[in-house]
């Protein structure tokens, strides 16, 4: 198999990363690999995606809506940034055919509309046949570039083992809230392929939420309100934290801040770094007191991490004794912890039903990595740098001899690079979801039948 050179625009995105040992883009992503991935290799899980987005409407039950899948919007981004919106497919095989004829660089999933997106122009914009979204998963997008002001190891598109834990903490905080506070049950977390995570909440209740309700949930999650104009981007007013924030702080954020974060980011170890933190304390005297202690500390043999921890203790003690000086100091310690660790979601993605989001199991064109699901109950184990790349998958096929059959449920598929992810998708997410969908279709059908029976009775 020959390799093809691809557009050099791929190289531009690599400029901000150190060039040492960075493999060239053609080595893990190119259009030929993409053809194999979406082709007959049984890598991309077409039928699983179709089953998921059909939500049980497989036509086998009289209560099914056989046109449901056909009303879902997809969009394709092709080579050269050609963008095709409002694509829809009436079944799995037409979806497969379309993907196999375009080999899109990116596939996005949109909302389920009132009519087939690709037939929307046939309907007028008024009256009862308006083209409008009717269902859409509640989605979240967390991108590590939104944390650039608090991570020192990387910036921009890069991600490493030192800063990835920020994503892990974000998953834990949001996932716990979605299940404990909002009672959602069918939640899928997906690696975005390079530097973030996406979350798909698929409960029927979630899919039917209005834009206003989605906005409310997004705002509930919002704590960080930053821009260059303010130094104190997290302002926690009142006399205590809201129970959701308190639980997040006690169960995840505090431990992470005082432990792993100090080890990986050493946020107090240099003047530049600690000045940023001092700026969050709204009292000049306290700032000076701490600055005095730190500027003049003797050259010690302690590690960066140890120095940071010592300074953090000093800060905490000082603030503890002085926090009654002003309302803005009351929860200053918590504010600092939240600034460095609390999830920063992209609000716009969550607020509107018609917002498109990348499909799971797509391949990221800049990294070649597959957008695999992440287990929220085991997210500490997830390593973004160990996610299979397109080229690795192709290698595996070549060296394995016979094709890896992803539909094979035997133990062999566990050992294939992608098989494990697909298996997880099926057993932890898809199967429970479909079971619950079928129950709902069944019960609402029974209710409908029951009602019409009553109307016929004498």
């Amino acid at each position, binding site marked *: 198999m020959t390799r093809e050179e691809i557009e050099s625009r791929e190289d531009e995105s690599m400029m901000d990363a150190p060039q040492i040992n960075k493999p060239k883009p053609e080595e893990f992503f190119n259009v030929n690999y993409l053809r194999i991935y979406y082709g007959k290799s049984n890598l991309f899980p077409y039928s699983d995606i179709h089953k998921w987005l059909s939500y049980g409407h497989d036509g086998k039950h009289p209560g099914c809506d056989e046109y449901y899948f056909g009303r879902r919007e997809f969009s394709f981004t092709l080579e050269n940034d050609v963008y095709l919106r409002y694509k829809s497919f009436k079944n799995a095989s037409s979806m497969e055919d379309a993907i196999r004829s375009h080999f899109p660089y990116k596939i996005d999933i949109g909302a389920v509309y009132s009519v087939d997106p690709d037939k929307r122009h046939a309907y007028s914009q008024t009256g009862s046949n308006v083209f409008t979204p009717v269902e859409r998963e509640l989605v979240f997008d967390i991108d590590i570039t939104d944390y650039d002001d608090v991570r020192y190891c990387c910036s921009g598109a890069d991600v490493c083992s030192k800063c990835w834990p920020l994503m892990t903490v974000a998953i834990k905080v949001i996932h716990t809230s979605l299940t*404990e*506070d*909002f*009672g*959602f049950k069918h939640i899928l977390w997906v690696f975005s392929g390079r530097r973030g995570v996406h979350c798909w909440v698929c409960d029927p*209740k979630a899919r039917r*939420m209005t834009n*206003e*309700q989605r*906005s*409310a*949930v997004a*705002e*509930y999650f919002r704590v960080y309100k930053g821009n260059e104009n303010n130094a104190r981007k997290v302002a926690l*007013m*009142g*006399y*205590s*934290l*809201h*129970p*959701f*924030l*308190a639980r997040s702080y006690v169960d995840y954020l505090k431990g992470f801040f005082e432990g792993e974060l100090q080890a990986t980011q050493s946020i107090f170890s240099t003047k530049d770094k600690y000045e940023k933190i001092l700026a969050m304390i709204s009292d000049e005297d306290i700032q000076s007191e701490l600055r005095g202690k730190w500027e003049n500390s003797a050259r010690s043999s302690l590690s960066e991490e140890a120095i940071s921890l010592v300074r953090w203790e000093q800060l905490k003690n000082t603030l503890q004794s002085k926090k009654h000086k002003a309302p803005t100091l009351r929860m200053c310690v918590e504010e600092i912890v939240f600034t460095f660790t609390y999830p920063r979601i992209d609000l716009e993605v969550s607020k509107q039903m018609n917002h498109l989001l990348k499909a799971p199991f797509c391949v990221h064109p800049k990294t070649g990595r597959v957008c695999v699901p992440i287990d929220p109950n085991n997210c500490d184990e997830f390593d973004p740098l160990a996610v299979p790349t397109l080229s690795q998958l192709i290698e595996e096929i070549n060296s394995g001899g016979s094709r890896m059959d992803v539909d094979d449920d035997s133990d062999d598929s566990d050992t294939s690079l992608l098989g494990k992810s697909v298996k997880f998708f099926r057993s932890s997410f898809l199967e429970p979801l479909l079971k619950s969908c079928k129950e709902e279709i069944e019960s609402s059908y029974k209710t409908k039948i029951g009602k019409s029976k009553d109307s016929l009775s004498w």
Partner: protein
Amino acid sequence: MEVIRSQKRTPSNDTVSNPKIPLYLTAPQMEVRLEEFELFAVDRLRVLKGVSDGLARGRNPKEMDDLVDTLWKEHMRDPDASLMFNKDIISHFVLRLVYCRSDELKKWFLSMETALFRHRFRLQNFEAQRAIVGEFGLPYKAVTGAELEGLKERLGQVVRSLGQISPTVEAVYYKVPFEEVPDLVASRRVLIQKGYAFVAGSQLVSLVVTQFRSHISKALILTNRKWTTTIREREKDRLTPIVEALSTSYLGPDYSQSTEYAEISLKDIDQVAKSSFPLCMRHLFEKVREDHHLKHGGRMQLGLFLKGVGLKLDDALAFWRAEFTKKVGSERFDKEYAYSIRHNYGKEGKRTDYTPYACQKIILSAPGAGDHHGCPYRHFSEDNLRAALGRMGLSSRGMEGVMDQVRNKHYQLACTMTFEAVYGTSCDAGINHPNQYFEESQKILKSKTPPAPV
């Protein structure tokens, strides 16, 4: 609801039950006299416009509570409680017919009725509020006993997080699906657990207002459908003209009879246009002088205004003739334009003495290519508006205030601010009629000029 000709009222079937605020869930089953159909609606409209005005002026919630209380007592009160209740219901449903007919009207009505409901609700005592919540038939249960005990600590945390230093929890909490109270969720003002929000009694307003708004919104769509398919045609000789007039009804003096301040003669007209005309009329006037022509919309808007300002019919004919004949010739003027000027003054045809347009009507008009009528604050581009305001003598600081109102679509407030900037005085009543602008302006100018020597 049955509308009947003047007859003695038959007692209504509606019993006045405890809730003092009706929820307008179903159309009332009662007979309404034709006069009451319009009168009740006009009174309620005065309340809604008062609410609109209060909101536009940025009144805080407590001020709005007081304003609503005052407005309601002034326009809707009746010594007989059951009559007052009936008027409340009837007027609401009539206005639904009026305001369901376009998106803009629907949006306004929905906002004002929701605000009215919100503040009337806030004025009720707790028992009355609970009764109203019950009326909605919402399956919200009060949380009691063991469940409440188990939540007490976290409910206390919520209370403290909102700035109350002691974690005292209210006596009553309602368990509500979180979707029903989006604003409380967004601002983290409630405890949420397994999809339910725990709403304090004092937070009930949010709950019911969301319900109310959603119900009225859906109802308006259904009403619109019924209106366009059956009612409008069926009632074309009776209710439809009333309904159509109500949405543009302007509820102040109509300026059809000009006052002593307002008489102007032809020789003064240019000077008076510069000193006292509002921007919309200045623009039209300038265009007539410039182009020696105006299209129909402009002729109506300016022509009726001039009548209201005190221009006699003969002077009006002379004015328009002087300009138009420069373009179309004397014969064509007599044939095509003189008639309609006389018509405006009630000297032809139906002999209706037409009233000058109020701001509301002007703002809602739709000037097209070649037209110069309409409201400049709404219909001009930002650049053109700034240029026009500059010519009126506004400083750049004054202009910013006006442009701000324009951006927020408060066109009448923009005109009021212009008035205040030009004459250096405040205008608390707010401009809502071009002739009002003219009269107020003349009052100020006359009070400044010394009386002419005898």
